[in-house]
């Protein structure tokens, strides 16, 4: 409908000036995407629960070590990090925490975008931004954990 219809629509409704047609926005038409037939959402749902349980231990342990024990946050320095990452145990801890937290958070944000973005375009670009940021952070973090050099100058 043209812009003229909004105010003057009260008068002269007739064969030449029909009432504005309201298309149902949620009808399943030929353009509606086909059903997915994969278990992606199922695995995503389970991953969120399992990673959440593991993250409670990893993150609370991390916060305890970094912020509470041995003089709190003031002790954290390059030497402190270098000392911890000399042990494969803390490297594994940080690596698992990084991957689980990033994937858990990214999947959570993905569902939030799916739930809240109104237009398909907005939804697509927000998710592309999210995936780019996630991949970048995960790769950068992994790179640092594996190539950390305590003798760097």
């Amino acid at each position: 409908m043209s812009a003229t219809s909004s105010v003057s629509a009260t008068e002269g409704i007739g064969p030449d000036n029909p009432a504005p047609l309201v298309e149902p926005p949620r009808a399943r038409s030929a353009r509606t995407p086909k059903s997915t037939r994969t278990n992606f959402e199922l695995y995503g749902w389970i991953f969120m629960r399992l990673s959440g349980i593991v993250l409670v231990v990893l993150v609370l342990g991390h916060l305890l070590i970094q912020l509470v024990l041995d003089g709190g946050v003031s002790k954290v320095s390059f030497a402190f990090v270098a000392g911890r990452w000399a042990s494969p145990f803390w490297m594994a801890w940080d690596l698992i925490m990084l991957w689980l937290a990033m994937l858990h958070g990214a999947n959570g944000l993905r569902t939030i975008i799916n739930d809240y973005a109104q237009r398909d375009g907005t939804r697509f670009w927000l998710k592309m931004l999210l995936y780019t940021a996630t991949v970048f952070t995960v790769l950068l973090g992994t790179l640092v954990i594996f190539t950390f050099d305590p003798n760097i100058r």
Partner: protein
Amino acid sequence: MATPTLEKPAEAGTDHLVTVTFRIRRFNPEVSEEVHWQDFEIAIDPKERVLDALHQIKWHEDGTLTFRRSCAHGICGSDAMRINGKNRLACKTLIKDITAIKGSVATKPILVEPIKGMTVLKDLVVDMEPFFQAYRDVMPFLITSGNEPTRERLQSAEDRERFDDTTKCILCAACTSSCPVFWNDGQYFGPAAIVNAHRFIFDSRDEGGEQRLEVLNDKDGVWRCRTTFNCTDACPRGIEVTKAIQEVKKALITRRF
């Protein structure tokens, strides 16, 4: 009155009437693209239902007011609407239960809107087609294999009890139109379709459970449920809708692992 009737003492019994303002969301695409709120002040017995008030308005005040109702007794599921911000059946909601009455005047107006998430056609009437499309997609009918038995298909009382709760659905759409996920993306099947799939998935006589589970395993299926319990609160039949959705999720997971 034109018809000669026994002259009832109509004036005598008006003490029980209460003045209630109904604030109704009006929309008529043939008049304006804009919606507006219209107030109707009527005198009505507070023990009457909201549907009676709508009838009184339509029959005596404004004949253009449009809403759906068929049986008017909570069975057909036609008159689900948003009353004071909550999805209810107008035919099961007593005026005295949703408004405070001081003297013989209701203190606040009663808000009546169409259910959310579906296209409003006129006033309180919405396009239910997407809702019924989702319902059809879960195949809400008995699926069996083999020859038709010559007698009825028998079932134990325990097997019947398993899905008893979800047989109560009247397809009023109060649950689906209270779901925030459905509000924003109508591709989500919605609680009502899942409830009606549940009714057959857990029926021991039915053999189409796998197909229905596969349909609901879709990205717009049960995994979009955020367990906000809006549907359970909205259901006028008291179905534990969120529980039914969770049981379908559980069936999907135990099927896989």
